[in-house]
């Protein structure tokens, strides 16, 4: 992890030249999306200037609790992750996947026009790179490729930022997804007081880097960047023991802990909405009054909704307990069967943004501590 990369891969970008990065991307036709302060939180939205970044702000996070706080320095990226994730750009909350028009010769089916917006994401954290990689598998790795995700993803330019701090809700180390950005980016930045150590992760990244007003990086800058990154590792306090987690959960489907957490869970869907990998969605028709022009709209949905498992003769998962179990076992266990990876990247959003502070790491630990298979070996 702390392997020193050859210094020629790295450059130094002074903060005074930072705006050029956005200008170049915009000049290349990218819509640049980055962190900014809105609604008392750090969210992702379109930016045109570094001025819009949350300079000097940080976030304080705990289960069910988030507050912005002023830093005593001028860091651009001195926070962790907020309620938004990049999935809202790659897998939009609402999109039209097809349409149908009634004509004299019957229904005509159409595909939507391709997405033309190219996004450049500025400030993607290691856990978020991992989340994008997870969604890549979901949407493009199987027998069917989602054209909407695929188009947006192929056009996206990713500028990662290494975390230099960790929130008490972070557990990316446990999930082996961070905090160091190792792949999946075009450029990666590590913020120092007066500039960024920049690393290219792709040809597109290299090419952009060559157009920036960068300087040769010094050994001191590299060392300083490394110690900043190490700070994020050292600060991480939360852990999720992933050892045998798939079998642990799938063999404890009748564990009493599910009822316990099910009684606290609101079934509100917040954890699934903020999760950067949750991909559940529904397609519904929207028609004009005559019913002759129909759009098939796909919107984010959630396994926490009662209607989600509804069939004509009944609902499969009828209680919040069953739905919480579905979410957690999918995220941490059956995701492995389906996509050969965990569905969790350890970003901690579901912990922070749960309105009643339910913490999945605590739930897993509770089940592990009282693993019923280890005692009785099965159910009667």
């Amino acid at each position, binding site marked *: 992890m702390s392997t020193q990369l050859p210094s020629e891969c790295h450059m130094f970008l002074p903060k005074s030249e930072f705006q050029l990065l956005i200008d170049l991307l915009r000049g290349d036709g990218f819509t640049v999306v980055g962190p900014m302060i809105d609604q008392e939180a750090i969210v992702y939205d379109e930016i045109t200037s570094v001025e819009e970044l949350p300079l000097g702000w940080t976030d304080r996070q705990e289960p069910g609790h988030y507050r912005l706080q002023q830093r005593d320095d001028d860091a651009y990226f001195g926070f962790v992750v907020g309620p938004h994730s990049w999935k809202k750009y790659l897998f939009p909350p609402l999109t039209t996947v097809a349409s149908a028009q009634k004509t004299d010769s019957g229904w005509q089916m159409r595909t939507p026009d391709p997405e033309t917006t190219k996004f450049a994401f500025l400030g993607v954290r290691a856990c978020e790179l991992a989340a994008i990689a997870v969604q890549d598998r979901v949407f493009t790795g199987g027998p069917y490729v989602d054209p909407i995700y695929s188009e947006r993803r192929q056009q996206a330019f990713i500028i990662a930022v290494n975390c230099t701090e960790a929130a008490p809700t972070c557990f990316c180390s446990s999930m082996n997804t961070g905090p160091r950005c190792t792949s999946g980016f075009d450029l990666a930045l590590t913020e120092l007081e007066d500039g960024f150590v920049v690393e290219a992760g792709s040809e597109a990244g290299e090419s952009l880097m060559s157009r920036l007003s960068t300087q040769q990086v010094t050994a001191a800058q590299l060392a300083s960047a490394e110690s900043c990154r190490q700070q994020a590792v050292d600060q991480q306090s939360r852990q999720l023991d992933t050892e045998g987690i798939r079998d642990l959960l799938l063999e404890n489907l009748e564990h009493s802990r599910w009822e316990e957490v099910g009684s606290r869970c609101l079934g509100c869907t917040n954890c699934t909405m903020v999760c950067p990998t949750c991909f559940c969605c529904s397609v519904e028709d929207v028609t004009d*009054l005559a019913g002759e022009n129909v759009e098939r709209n796909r919107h984010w949905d959630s396994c926490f909704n009662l209607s989600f498992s509804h069939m004509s003769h009944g609902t499969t998962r009828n209680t919040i307990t069953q739905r919480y179990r579905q979410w957690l076992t999918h995220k941490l266990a059956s995701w492995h069967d389906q996509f050969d990876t965990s569905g969790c990247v350890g970003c901690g959003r579901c912990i922070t943004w749960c309105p009643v502070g339910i913490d999945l790491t605590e739930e897993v630990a509770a089940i592990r501590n009282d693993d019923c298979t280890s005692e009785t070996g099965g159910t009667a």
Partner: protein
Amino acid sequence: MSAPAARPKLAVFKFASCDGCQLSLLDAEDQLLDVVGLVDIAYFLEATSKIVDGPYDVALVEGSITTPRDEERIQEIRRQSGYLITIGACATAGGIQALRNWANLDDFIRTVYASPQYISSLSTSTAIADHVAVDFELRGCPINQYQLIEVIQALVAGRKPHTRTHSVCMDCKQQGNVCITVATGEPCLGPVTQSGCGAICPTYNRGCYGCYGPAKQIHAQSLTDHLIRQGTAPAEMVPLLRNFNSGAEPFRDESNRIESLT
């Protein structure tokens, strides 16, 4: 797919309410003329002086039952109506006027009226479904006009109306809103309130006050316990649950529970 040929005969009835829900139909400006073309408007006092006697295929009922006379009137409307749909929080949960259910009606009357003997009113304000069988409930204070149009469209097509029952949170997050409770500590009923409003309150920087009533399968106590632990006074939680849908069972029971704690 052919819709039933005859246009359903529609009636709009009003009980104790503000008129806002039936106005939602007139507020569907773009579709209004098309909608009125789909149905035969037989009784809709707010919109037309044309009055056709029952029976009616579809009755939209706004308002709650608060007088002895209305107790009888709703029975007659039920007899006259094929498919009875209640619209809005008054009709589905008793409305804001259901606050009288926790008060002494005589005190209420004396507060407002100098000559209480003239007032003929029940001591409760109750939902239509407490009196007659209701075929479909459309929630909200006020209802959402798009949901109302969906209901009418569904009835014309002879199918069950489709309205979603998830929490406000899902709509809220899909609009990119930050959770107001988590980020500011302000109490918000979004997690336990049914979708339909478009999550407007959090979008406008304020907590949801539950005007679409409880979502399906909620754990209201988990939310209130957490908010109280986080510093909201129980005395503040009671009125939050007790406003436009105070008569909806999960809100009513939870407000009673917290009240008993204080």
